[in-house]
């Protein structure tokens, strides 16, 4: 056995220990709710908690709206910039990366000051207004991932040629976008959508500071008040992240498959 390979295995085993022990620990802990035996009691408690259902559904709905909003903003822009304004691409790209530079807590701080009840756009004055603000905020958080996913999808098709071909056959812009561009970048949009979902579902800072009953604040509240239920929540959250990433992998693989056949 060569020594580099030995060290590779050693590093891998150490990495596996570090990455799997917390997962095992979290799962084991979540089963301890009944004294002396393993049970799914903590999960039953969590799932039957009306607060869990309310906050989880709230976050799911916000995530769905965030995805729709994100796609509506990002997809036409990325398409248009590739087609008509290539010179603007670095600027757009720079803007889409800003949410990675500016800490989320600073962005939400800005919202609270800029859209409070005494401002020109008092979004935080009503619950619905705050919901809308939260959705826009999450779209900002997801912007880097959504834009990258869609832009990568657009790179693989020849936008200009396809559009010209459609135009010369008399297609309207609406037809071009819905029947031509969207189907071609659907897997890219799906990737962005599921990544957005994974980010939004357990988000804490925005929801907490805007005082919205999201799943993130609920988890923190549980963490301070219960022993075993938080571990069950962590398992559920990990499952959701894992599922989202799985769908993304599947979507990318399927789109590659399509391309080979063509």
């Amino acid at each position, binding site marked *: 056995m060569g020594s580099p390979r030995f060290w590779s295995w050693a590093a891998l085993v150490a990495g596996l220990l570090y990455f799997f022990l917390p997962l095992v620990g979290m799962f084991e802990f979540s089963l301890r709710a009944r004294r002396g035996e393993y049970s799914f009691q903590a999960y039953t408690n969590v799932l039957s908690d009306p607060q869990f259902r309310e906050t989880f559904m709230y976050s799911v709905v916000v995530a769905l709206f965030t995805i729709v909003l994100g796609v509506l903003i990002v997809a036409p822009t990325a398409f*248009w910039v590739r087609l008509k304004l290539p010179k603007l691409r670095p600027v757009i790209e720079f803007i889409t990366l800003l949410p990675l*530079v500016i800490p989320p807590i600073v962005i939400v701080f800005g919202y609270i000051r800029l859209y409070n009840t005494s401002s020109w756009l008092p979004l935080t004055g009503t619950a619905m207004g705050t919901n809308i603000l939260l959705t826009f905020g999450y779209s900002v958080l997801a912007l880097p991932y959504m834009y990258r996913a869609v832009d990568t999808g657009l790179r693989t098709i020849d936008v200009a040629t396809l559009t010209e071909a459609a135009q010369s056959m008399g297609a309207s812009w609406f037809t071009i976008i819905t029947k031509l561009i969207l189907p071609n970048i659907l897997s890219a949009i799906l990737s962005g959508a599921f990544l957005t979902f994974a980010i939004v579902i357990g988000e804490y800072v925005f929801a907490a500071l805007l005082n919205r009953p999201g799943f993130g604040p609920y988890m923190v509240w549980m963490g301070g008040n219960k022993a075993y239920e938080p571990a069950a929540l962590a398992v559920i959250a990990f499952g959701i992240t894992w599922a989202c990433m799985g769908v993304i992998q599947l979507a990318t693989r399927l789109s590659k498959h399509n391309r080979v056949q063509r």
Partner: protein
Amino acid sequence: MTDATLAAPAPEPVEVQAPRPRPSRAAALPLKWLGVAPFMLFALLFLIMPTIHIVLGAFQTPEGAFTLRNLQGLAVPQVVRPFMLSIKISVLTAGLGCLFGLILAAAVTKGGLPGWIRDAMLTFSGVASNFAGVPLAFAFIATLGRLGLVTVILKEVFGINLAATGFNLISFLGLTLTYLYFQIPLMILIITPALDGLKREWREAAEILGASGSQYWRMVALPVLWPSLLGTFALLFANSFGAVATAMALTGSSLSIVPIILFAQIRGDVLQDPHLGYAIAFGMIVITGIANLVYIVLRTRAEKWIK
């Protein structure tokens, strides 16, 4: 800075389509720009204006006059200490994240391990780098907390009392250990393509010239990877510097890092000076901004080699 870059490109297309007749150009220009208007409006309202508002607020008195007093107000121990702690924890988790991430990525790409391990590792890294925030803190409490799995096993099987060794999850060390759970995977995701870019010929050339494995890494691979490594370090630094939820769920508010102080300040003005909150937020933007600038500059340099 940001609104300047927004406004700057506007006149460019005039030069681009010079040969066209005048009337069509005048009609085409606004329409063309209308296509990005929704995006620009969105970015302006929910990203750029809120940030500018905070930055301006850092230089304003409550009455709106220009002042540097807020920034001077940062120089008190109750603000400086959290900044130092945050920088320390970000440097440490970024450094260790880079080191362990590089080792793991090198092991799966260059270490002669079966190919499926590499794919599995990349997939898992994609999940783990997104598994941050509140649930991650719970996972570590369930593992290394007072009643956590590892704590219990160490005590009952090996007779080691973790608490007696001075280890406490709700501490600097505990937070570092937890942050590494998303820092290392992020490093693996970013550095693996760079490692793939190391050409086999370079290694063969080094070996023909009589270099040992460690000499190859020290004198060929690492110098080539250096900009990528430093750049990723900067990215990981910013990543950890802005993280709030994990620390919050892990330590409550007992560990005073900057984002937690800012969180408390936004909630309840704990520093008793609203404009000091602006100054702290501005300080955070400056630090993550510098880190990202370093990342961007070094990445463009790294791309020269890795093609």
